[in-house]
């Protein structure tokens, strides 16, 4: 049971970030800056909780930090039509740099942790509810239909009178808030402390999860839990000390990510049907 909980806890930040990015990509935007938004969420969440002594303030701060970063991304890619791939990279580089600077005085400080009931922190049920909510909204409501429509053909959505840019801004900010919260989870719940660069590629893994899930929320949850299981199992193996160097076990999540991408992308029929057709393409309305 404990093992099960550990797996869920390890998976929850991945799930939060992946669900956010899933919505962003469903609207046709590829934000590769998840890592940067996450790490900013982590440092701001930790800082706010540490300074106020209230972990809930930290949670709020991490959400705001992620959303603010995503707004920067939105301004560049949606308003100024900058290349989405390059801007996403820029967001990651900036986030890692800025968080290092902001968090310098937090290193080694004791964190403030969210209350936990029976080993379950409040964000675990929240992440499940979020997944259910996103799944419901995307496939059962008009708002979700509009998001999918904008991601499928922005010019057709524009011709019908939908404000493509506004829809995408909202989705990008939702994704940023989720990524920020995922980062906050790491620094307020998971490890309660701030370590520079503590996301260690988890944002990128969340991006891979979205592809792995072929843009379906419940599949993202399954992927995140599988992933959590693999990374926890490698820890378990390590503690039993089977003579396998820790570096190899630590590189397992990255290798598994590559393997997952290979398996899922190789199967075109599976991934193609749900891939948002406008993913990564800038929208320029004619006026």
């Amino acid at each position: 049971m404990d093992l099960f909980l550990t797996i869920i806890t390890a998976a929850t930040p991945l799930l939060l970030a992946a669900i956010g990015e899933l919505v962003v990509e469903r609207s046709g935007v590829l934000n590769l800056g998840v890592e940067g938004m996450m790490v900013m969420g982590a440092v701001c969440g930790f800082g706010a909780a540490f300074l106020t002594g209230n972990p809930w303030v930290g949670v709020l701060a991490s959400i705001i930090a992620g959303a603010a970063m995503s707004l920067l991304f939105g301004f560049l890619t949606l308003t100024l039509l900058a290349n989405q791939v390059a801007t996403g990279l820029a967001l990651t580089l900036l986030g890692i740099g800025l968080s290092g600077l902001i968090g310098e005085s937090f290193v080694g400080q004791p964190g403030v942790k969210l209350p936990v009931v029976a080993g379950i922190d409040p964000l675990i049920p929240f992440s499940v509810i979020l997944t259910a909510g996103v799944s419901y909204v995307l496939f059962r409501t008009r708002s979700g239909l509009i998001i999918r429509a904008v991601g499928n053909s922005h010019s057709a959505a524009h011709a019908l009178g939908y404000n493509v840019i506004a829809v995408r801004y909202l989705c990008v900010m939702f994704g940023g808030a989720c990524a920020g919260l995922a980062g906050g989870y790491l620094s307020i719940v998971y490890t309660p402390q701030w370590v520079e660069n503590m996301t260690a590629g988890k944002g990128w893994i969340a991006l891979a999860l979205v592809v792995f899930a072929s843009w379906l929320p419940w599949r993202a949850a399954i992927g995140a839990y599988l992933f959590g299981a693999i990374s926890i199992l490698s820890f378990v193996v390590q503690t039993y000390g089977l003579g396998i160097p820790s570096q190899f076990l630590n590189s397992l999540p990255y290798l598994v990510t590559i393997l997952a991408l290979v398996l899922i992308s190789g199967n075109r029929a599976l991934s193609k049907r749900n891939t948002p057709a406008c993913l990564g393409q800038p929208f320029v309305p004619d006026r």
Partner: protein
Amino acid sequence: MSANEITPLLEARNIVKIFGTLRANDDVTLKCMPGEIHAFLGENGAGKSTLVKMIYGALQPTSGQFFWNGRGVVIASPSVARQLGIGMVFQHFSLFEALTVAENIALAMPGSFDLGALSARISKVSASYGLPIAPDAVVADLSVGERQRIEIIRCLLQEPKLLIMDEPTSVLTPQEADQLFAVLKRLASEGCSVLYISHRLEEVKDLCDSATILRHGKVVACVNPKKETAASLARLMVGGDVHAVKPAKAGTVGKERLLLKNLSLAADGQFAVALKNISLAVRAGEVVAIAGVAGNGQGEFFDAISGERPVETGMVEIDGVAMGRAGINARRKVGAAFVPEERLGHGAVPEFPLSQNVLLSRHAADDRLVKKGLVQKDGARETAERVIKAFDVRKGKPDPEARALSGGNLQKFVVGRELDRTPAVLVINQPTWGVDAGAAAAIRQAILDLAAQGSAVLVISQDLDEIFEVATRIAVISRGELSEARPAAAWSREAIGLMMAGAHEQKHDSRKEKRHAAGA
């Protein structure tokens, strides 16, 4: 005129629309009466689409005003237009391929979100107007004609007072077009006005009660098309006599230069078309035209002949050499040349100047352009200038980027680039799609002249007028199968239409079978 007594349903008064330096609409005035089918005629690029986009609220005029039932209105967005009672069927459909028919329609419907109830309404309206469609089908699986039905039903469900149709028949078979005309006439008889945009004169004469004619963004006439001839309408549209293409001399046909033997190609992806057992010979001195509705394998056919997608060795022969496995450049080296359908992004790189776009298709077969892997900039520039001069390509500066040229001028350049080599075999897909009449005539003449010099030309086109203008022999492609190529004189429009459409029904059945098979 009686127009002064009855209030027009829609009136556009002195509309001006400026894009940068281009006056797309210059003082356009148009009146559409209740219950009439009003034609809005003009060449490609005359500014028709610009005006209707403003009527539909997708664009805003620079100056001028619209009146609806005599009251001045600002149509700020498509939803405002829909509230007024304006519906529009776009030329390039505004459909979402990954969504179902019902979801597509729901996106245009205000009110509560209930796909079940909406599906029932869709079925009712589609049955009542004879426009069969399944509400839960995914758009990507549907044919072009079916997609147009979705757009029409989407408008009808909103009980419009004005229906705008933007070039609706350009993608339909003649029979499908007739069905469409019946629906439009019925709508008009029920009191719904139709604004019918087209450059096809015969159908306008048949269908429309009045016509506003646009040239270079200005209204040049407002006439009753039933009292005009096709030639008089064409003169108004083009502003002078249309250049007639001089037909090729008959009887100069020589040896087989392009030979396709049982050409087959598997479908690349879920929605693509497979080519099945296509055999065809194109001989020196003749133009063979392939007719067909868009999406019946023309793209795949072009790719297989050009070598963009290799096939089996013996399936394609150029001047007696088996070339099925060869790449596109090897085929060019034995004298073949290719012009794809898309000008921007396929036939030319939009962001590159013309002198570099010359390299795109000619780098392998011309050592004046490339020596030992090094680009010869002078050679490329000279070639570009020669093509520009020979084909009268109009441009703003000496060596502009491809995207800066108008559609007609870029098409002249892309065709001229290949003809400059006097190829033994020319394969050209949609030679004059979206091109103004002057450029179209020049390109068709060039095709005929090339054949007259002893080359073999294969034209793939959706435009039956064009096909009859240039073709020595005609074959019809449908769902990846090619009919026998018969002399042009042996075909009637109806016969071609039936070949195009008959296969359509079968296509449906086979798709359904495929889905069943996949499900089982």
